């Protein structure tokens, strides 16, 4: 028991300094003879492009956003936790605030009410940011594709870098997807922004149909509106 030990917890400061100095001088401490040092030879310099270095750093230390939507988020939690432990791959610190995160995993079905909220969360993340679409729902709407309320894939709303298929994908698949994303980031690739989610138009410019006529009482002609075109979605 620790209570048996009556000695206070002390460190001999003088010895720490001398030990470190000795190690530095003689070069005997293992820390200073790492394999990295061996690889560099006697030169302490690395020659690389700064961009390339930054990309490598970015890929090796990713801060994920703690973001749960549906079934896939359960498997995502398992990936973060014991057994699969995503932290081993330098990507395991879920941040609760989007302002501290640079990767967002979208784990689940996106419906019309949630899509604008997800877009806002994504907008709040600082650049550079990356998106992992987890599960079939973020690819096409998955098993719920024919639903009247389901957005047919995350790419309708935000650009996605990596798609992981499955319903839900196993934790191993998510780990593989994260590793693939790291590879892409290290190579300086990211998804081209092809999505224009908020194509806004003035209400007065909309084609007149039954719905528009019905809404005319509530909406002014110069109000900006969005039009969800369910039939045209992939």
């Amino acid at each position, binding site marked *: 028991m620790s209570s048996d030990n009556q000695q206070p917890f002390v460190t001999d400061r003088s010895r720490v300094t001398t030990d470190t100095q000795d190690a530095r001088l003689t070069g005997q401490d293992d820390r200073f003879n790492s394999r990295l040092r061996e690889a560099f030879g006697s030169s302490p310099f690395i020659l690389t492009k700064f961009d390339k270095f930054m990309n490598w750093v970015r890929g090796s230390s990713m801060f994920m956003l703690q973001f749960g939507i*549906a079934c896939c988020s359960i498997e995502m939690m398992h990936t973060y936790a014991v057994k699969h432990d995503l932290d081993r791959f330098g990507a395991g610190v879920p941040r609760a605030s989007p302002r501290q995160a640079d990767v967002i995993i979208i784990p689940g079905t996106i419906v019309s009410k949630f899509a604008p*909220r997800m877009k806002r969360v994504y907008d709040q993340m600082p650049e550079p940011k990356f998106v992992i679409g987890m599960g079939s729902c973020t690819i096409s709407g998955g098993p719920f594709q024919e639903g009247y309320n389901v957005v047919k894939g995350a790419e309708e709303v935000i650009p996605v870098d990596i798609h992981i298929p499955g*319903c839900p994908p196993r934790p191993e698949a998510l780990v593989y997807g994260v590793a693939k994303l790291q590879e892409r980031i290290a190579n300086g690739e990211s998804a081209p922004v092809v999505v224009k989610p908020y194509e806004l138009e003035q209400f007065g410019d909309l084609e007149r149909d039954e719905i528009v006529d019905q809404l005319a009482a509530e909406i002014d002609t110069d109000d900006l509106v969005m039009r*969800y075109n369910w039939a045209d979605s992939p």
Partner: protein
Amino acid sequence: MSIELPETAGVTEQSPEELEALLDELVIGRDDHLNAPGYVIKPDTVVESLRRLRDDAGFDHLSCVTAQEYDDRYESIYHLKKFDDPTQEVSIVVPADKENPVSQSANAVFRTADWHEREAYDLVGIEYDEHPNLKRILLPDTWQGHPLGQSYDQDQPQVVPLREHKNPLLEDQRAASESETMYLNIGPHHPATHGVLHVKAVLDGEQVVDLEPDIGYLHRCEEQMCQNSTYRYQIMPYPDRWDYISAGLLNEWAYARVAEDMADIEVPEYAQVIRTMGAELCRMAAHFLALGTFALDIYGDFTAIFMYSIRDRERVQNILEDLTGQRLMFNYFRLGGVVWDLPEPREEFIENARDYLEELPTALEEYHDMMTANEILQLRTVDTGVLPPEVAKSYGATGPVARGSGIDYDLRRDDPYGYYDKLDWDVVVEDGCDNYSRLLVRMREVEQSAKIVEQCLDLLEDWPEDERTIQANVPRTIKPKDDTEIYRAVEGAKGELGIYIRADGTEKPARFKIRSPCFSNLQTLPEMSNGEYVPDAIASLGSLDIVLGEVDR
């Protein structure tokens, strides 16, 4: 060996004729369902009829409200039960005019009708008179049309003004200068809301004055999906995705039970034992996650209890994966049985499961040491989020939430199905009515589930090899007779999970309505939180253990 049934002597059972006499002049017709007698009443006598049934006949549980549209009318069905004996059921059928569908709200008799009727208005389009807050609940306010109505065109575009999506925090949200209160948005992206729930809270200092859950951020049209699928195979994968916290088999059982009762399919006993075992393993996994996230909500314990609960879940999931081939979405039940037998070698599977059960008491001891015996947790949970039994009943709360309020209600015992009535186990009831009781109920239910699984394993081990029938002989297509209606429920991980189906003579249901336990349980949140501190409201939300996939469907 079978369990003791609750005292039902005090619960007098009325014959359909007696009920008709009780409702007397209110009844204008009969529309019996497979599970219960149905009485047709006029749309302006809803309150009177329900009140008579509740006060004079003891039907104190409004289980579900189903709305649907026929060619010539709209219809709301109130499915009533008794908490003391859920096998006594009655349906009140309220037709409404096709052109102008207005019906009286039942909110004055049962508080739970509030959300159920809002959902009916949102999806089907029936308007409820005297309803306190009749607006959309699952779909955005800007939605045009009622998607489960007959005239709805799914391909029509939706027009949404930009102002509906403007950032609510752009302007200062402070109320008028005399006001002492503050408005706080929690969610829909917030770690403590267990998914995509949005809670609108009005605070006075640290205290909650008013709180309103805003749901619908995960409404993935489950009812429509099921209505577009065939009974035999296509519907079964969807229940897995309602309550997705590994409770898949429990949900599948809800569908299997209702469809089997409807099509008159007898399930072999051996398959029932496998079902019972699988379902209880699922319940354990689901409760473990509830424990882990509850600790996370109470004192942010991400490092110990959460990890422990995930560890235990992984072990259960391994067993379930051996059994079903899947970690999370099992799709293991079939109408009339299960898809395949235990994996070979059987001995190894049974031994694995036994090993797990053997280590479970030690694991539970750890949870008790770290949670229930922990002074911080006790301070945070004892006597907070109090839900008196009468309030819980009025809101239709079921499952661990009801049992934590001292309501002795468990469909596994009270309305037996599967193999439960032949096994030896107890229903866990705590009468503290607070967050702590609900936590205790879940922890003790894990023990009971382990007891059930153990007995099932014994039975499976000794089952004669040539009597292992896993599926009954079920026709390739199932076409129940036109206008067959049935409502059946099972005890899911969160409470009473019921399904109403109306057949129209084809191989797809004409109306498929899901009664989600979380939907009713979540309604009690304002009752538990008003007047409490914000962190206690978060604790109450955690103790309700909701799954948004099931709340929104």
